[in-house]
């Protein structure tokens, strides 16, 4: 936790006041194309997604399951660059919706950590979710995010010790990302049994909002997770709408429909 104001904090405050969770929808930058990904993200927002998580495609996404792997491969094969991601973030942030960025660490390190933070802040991004960066290795990012006023979200997992939960949350600003299961991204038939326990363990050590991701794909699952989390994070199920569609229009229609279903779910938390 830091004295600095979180860029995404107001959105959480408002959702809390409304008695619901935020819906965070994830899409790889440049999938299926740069313009196509901007269109997809805007469609998600218009259908009720509160926060867009833009994932920077990476050649070796070791936390991601088959859906995000495939979408990332398509984006990279299409030639998307890190600077395109910054442009996408700018275009989506212009809608007024908060835009967080998820990225493996190497693309940021290669861009230059401070330069990336500067450009991300200028584009209107709220901060970074870093799936393969733990606070112990994050010295440069802690400094750059402070310097440019960005949020930082590290992940916690069911296997995290209490000490690590406290330490990790203490280095977050904005929200903490709780991975619901031990595994990689991808929608699953059942919601996690481990997630509610992990979230209540987190509540013991932090007042920050908690987002829960990994495995959520339906409105009913979103409602379940919204019952104990401050944000429900959905990736693979949304991306699959585009991957499985025969054409772009059908993909966007499916994406809007699922976004609306999930948005309904987070507005009716199972409590």
């Amino acid at each position: 936790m830091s004295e600095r104001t979180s860029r995404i904090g107001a959105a959480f405050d408002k959702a809390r006041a409304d008695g619901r969770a935020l819906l965070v929808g994830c899409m790889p930058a440049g999938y299926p194309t740069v313009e196509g990904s901007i269109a997809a993200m805007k469609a998600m927002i218009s259908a009720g997604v509160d926060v867009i998580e833009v994932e920077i495609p990476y050649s070796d996404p070791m936390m991601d399951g088959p859906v995000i792997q495939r979408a990332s491969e398509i984006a990279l094969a299409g030639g998307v660059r890190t600077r395109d991601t910054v442009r996408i973030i700018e275009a989506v942030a212009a809608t007024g919706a908060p835009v967080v960025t998820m990225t493996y660490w190497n693309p940021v390190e290669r861009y230059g950590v401070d330069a990336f933070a500067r450009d991300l802040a200028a584009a209107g991004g709220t901060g970074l979710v870093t799936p393969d960066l733990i606070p112990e290795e994050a010295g440069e990012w802690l400094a750059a995010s402070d310097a440019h006023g960005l949020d930082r979200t590290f992940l916690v997992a069911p296997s995290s010790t209490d000490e690590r939960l406290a330490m990790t949350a203490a280095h977050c600003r904005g929200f903490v990302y709780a991975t619901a299961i031990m595994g990689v991204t991808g929608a699953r038939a059942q919601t996690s049994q481990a997630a509610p326990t992990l979230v209540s363990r987190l509540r013991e050590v932090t007042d920050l909002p908690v987002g829960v991701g990994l495995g959520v794909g339906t409105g009913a699952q979103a409602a379940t997770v919204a019952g104990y989390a401050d944000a429900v994070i959905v990736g693979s199920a949304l991306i699959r709408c585009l991957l499985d569609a025969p054409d772009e229009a059908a993909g966007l229609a499916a994406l809007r429909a699922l976004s609306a279903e999930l948005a309904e779910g987070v507005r009716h938390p199972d409590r």
Partner: protein
Amino acid sequence: MSADAAKTEVPAQFPDAAGHFGTFGGRFVPEALVAALDELANAHQAAMADEVFRDEFAGLLRDYAGTPSLLYEARRFSAQVGARVLLKREDLNHTGAHKVRNVLGQALLTRRMGKRRVIAETGAGQHGVATATAAALFDLECVVYMGQVDTERQALNVARMRMLGATVVPVTTGSRTLKDAMNEAMRDWVANVDETHYLIGTAAGPHPFPALVRDFVRGIGDEARAQCLDLTGGLPDAVTACVGGGSNALGIFHAFTDDPQVRLYGFEAGGEGMDTGRHAASITGGSTGVLHGTRTFVLQDADGQTQESHSISAGLDYPGVGPEHAWLHDTGRATYQPVTDAEAMAAFELLCRTEGIIPAIESAHALAGTLAIAPKLTAELGRPPTIVVNLSGRGDKDVHTAGEYFGILDKE
């Protein structure tokens, strides 16, 4: 090279507690794996301090793997090199390479941690076969991830693994080669970490893997140093090895890092030549980055996307390198140079013809590099140098590749 100056920079204990070798190494992993990595680091430290564990490991290496491997003076090859060449015959170990040392050590650790399942990544299949071997010996379930391109190229090794009772999973994502097999093994590990040990094949990956793999293979250098003293009455002028991920090189370097008069040379896969861009020389031709959980030298583009590596040697065909090598390069303690496919194959042929030893193509890179540095060392020392070469593996697995390269296979 200023070996004397370099020595003063080498602290007693490396890596540090968090796995850093200078600015390299560390842990760039999902938080979900941290608990398992901590457990492994603790088990590794406790095992290394435990005499019973050390005795059991030493007994397995002696009675099962067939070590200490010979240090053989290759006189006819030496005459061609213009140096006194001593070959560390890791090719004679059970399973045909230095890798058996690492898998036996990690299999013992797996049992010590109470885990029943091991997973591994493999490129050409050598580490997969070695892991399947240890899993059979220790009665562990074994799953090996292998890029689909490699399962097709190396069908015999796939069959070997299956004979030994392992499940081989072809990986169809990304470039369908070693790096993608490593990603898939990591994904399996995140999902099954409670009962599974990831038996990584080289001195790379997140802490504590680089240190623990080094500790399990460092017997190569300990043996070679004592054998060289016995045989020649002194230390060698240079020690050479090939470097892919770099476990065989670290294994032989480590006993000599405190001997400043011993030059250390690592030879990377220069593929079709550094200027073609088609190579696997991460130190010579790459840049600092993060790959597979560690900060090291990586072949990458301007955006930090990993680039595909190229080498005639599947075992060196990896776009990263162990972080301790990155650090040995940075401090100047070891020197890294590329060796092309053509240079390696010429040395391969030379060893076959002069010594009646068919080396692994990986090890042929060390032989070629030795040929290249010998004249320079002779000039520097004013006499022919004594060079210990790590002959890390045997060439049986490479007969098809080499046969095609030399055009000596009968047409069907």
